[in-house]
């Protein structure tokens, strides 16, 4: 597998030449900013919770609902960036031993399967949202419509599919 955490800066200074397959034209800075903001918000909300609990003995545990939602956003938005840059965890040990043409075909197939998977998530997620909307389900903590949360599963799954499609296009272009 590939290392999950690379050293923050390349110790030898120079950067490896950018792989054209892993540099999307539509910048992923937007996804980065959203994921970073979700991470920061999770920390701030949780920390505020700790402070308030100590000062007032009251808890606003309902904020858990927001934090957990932010966790979903962080994951799916971060995953979109990871697909665009091929940062996902995979076993490349055996693939690297294959001839180049076969490797390329497998790479395409893997990306296509990923697109199929997240299209399904988007589609069935949409049906979920429709259910939440129709039956006016409310969230357990804040009592707001559950649909406010569930719509994002579809939206972000579509974003992931778009990023995978972008990578497929780049793979096709720079064979």
């Amino acid at each position: 597998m590939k290392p999950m955490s690379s050293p923050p800066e390349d110790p030898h200074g120079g950067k490896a030449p950018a792989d054209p397959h892993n540099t999307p034209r539509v910048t992923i800075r937007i996804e980065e900013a959203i994921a970073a903001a979700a991470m920061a918000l999770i920390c701030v909300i949780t920390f505020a919770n700790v402070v308030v609990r100590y000062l007032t003995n009251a808890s606003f545990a309902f904020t858990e609902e927001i934090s957990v939602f932010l966790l979903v956003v962080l994951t799916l938005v971060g995953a979109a960036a990871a697909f665009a840059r091929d940062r996902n965890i995979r076993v490349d040990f055996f693939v690297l031993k294959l001839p180049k043409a076969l490797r390329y075909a497998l790479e395409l197939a893997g990306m296509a399967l990923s697109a199929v998977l997240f299209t399904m998530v988007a589609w069935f997620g949409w049906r979920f949202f429709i259910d939440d909307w129709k039956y006016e389900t409310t969230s357990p903590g804040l009592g707001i419509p559950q649909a406010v949360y569930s719509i994002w599963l579809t939206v972000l799954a579509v974003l992931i599919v778009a990023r995978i499609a972008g990578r497929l296009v780049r793979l096709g272009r720079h064979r």
Partner: protein
Amino acid sequence: MTALLFGGFLLLLLAGVPLATALGISGAAVILLADLGAMSIAANVYSSLAKYPLLALPVFILAGMIFERAGVAAKLVAFVAALIGPRRGAQGAVAIIVCMFLGGISGSGPADAAAVAMVMLPSMTRQGYPPAFSASLIAAAGSTAILIPPSIAFVIFTVLVPQVSVPALFAAGMIPGILAGLSLLVPAFVFARRYGWGAEDGAERQRLLAVLKDASWGLAAPVIILGGLRTGAFTPTEAAVVAVFYGLFVGTVVYRTIDARKLYRVLVDSAEISAVVMLIIACAGIFAHAGSTLGAFDAMAKAMLGVTDEPWLMLVMIMALLLVAGMLLDAASIFLIFLPILIPVVNAFGWDMTWFAVLMTMNMAIGQFTPPMAVNLLVTTRIAGIGIETTVRWVLWMVLSMLSALALVAAFPQLALWLPARLGY
């Protein structure tokens, strides 16, 4: 269907398909073909992620990264080096001990190994240690990060097996983690003596008190994290958040190594690494739903139980399987794939789940530096600028050392279970 689920997944995995996709698509295919309710594909993605205990995962990753980027490793190295003093083999021992300390702040093996390698590789090379040896030693010592609390791997284990609590598992990992680290001192000292590495009149010795003052900020981090958990004042997520803010204070006010730009970068990087792990958790939700609804996990467990009813043989078999899996994959992924099958086996033999979690994680730790596929070794050899194959003659001794630590914990479960029992978890 069972064959399609496991066979399809394995085939996709070995074909280099992203692990998340391999899990999700084989699960989804079975759900659609066996008509298990297509809506569950989306529902499981959401419900696997939307769990409060899982919040601890990204926050612990962030906390570890903040300390790493604050430059805590260099200060710890200076302190431990001054503590041990100049003697033969000292540098190797310093590397091991600093890796273990950092493991008490971060819960990721490759991150730990990278931080220490960047600080220690140049100085070890100056003292005559071959880079291949130093890279092996630091890769091995860095793997203790997933055993010594806080540990990302343990957080994921408790999300999957809710009857085990995070504080209990953190406590259980402490002694085995230290044991695993200390086991590496043997090859470090033996080789240093045999080949005469490490000049006895090494670098100029710094004053202990001065370096202690610098390092104390880092040394206090594990105390804050574990202390908060111990008193029950914090949930694991809250303990991690407190560590984040403490790390920010150290990085911005004390060491002045983190500015606004770096802070943003650390948020982005930690979010991305967390997302990659949690996407696998989300897709493993689809796989697990398919497997448990089909009864495929129970069938696999039964097949395993049919092989032998000798607990020792079973344990050795499972450990061997996990060791190989640990070379290919990280701990989080292995828990997600294997736990549904292994939990019935553990229950059938009446093994303690906490102890078993520690044994599993020790295998993953060893897998992190066993060539040819080893994340930690990949990171340290890249920093050293050498090929991974040059490390084989050294690193195998370290695998052997840590395997003996594993054997000890397997033979004496109290090594893992004494501390949590003592602390009353």
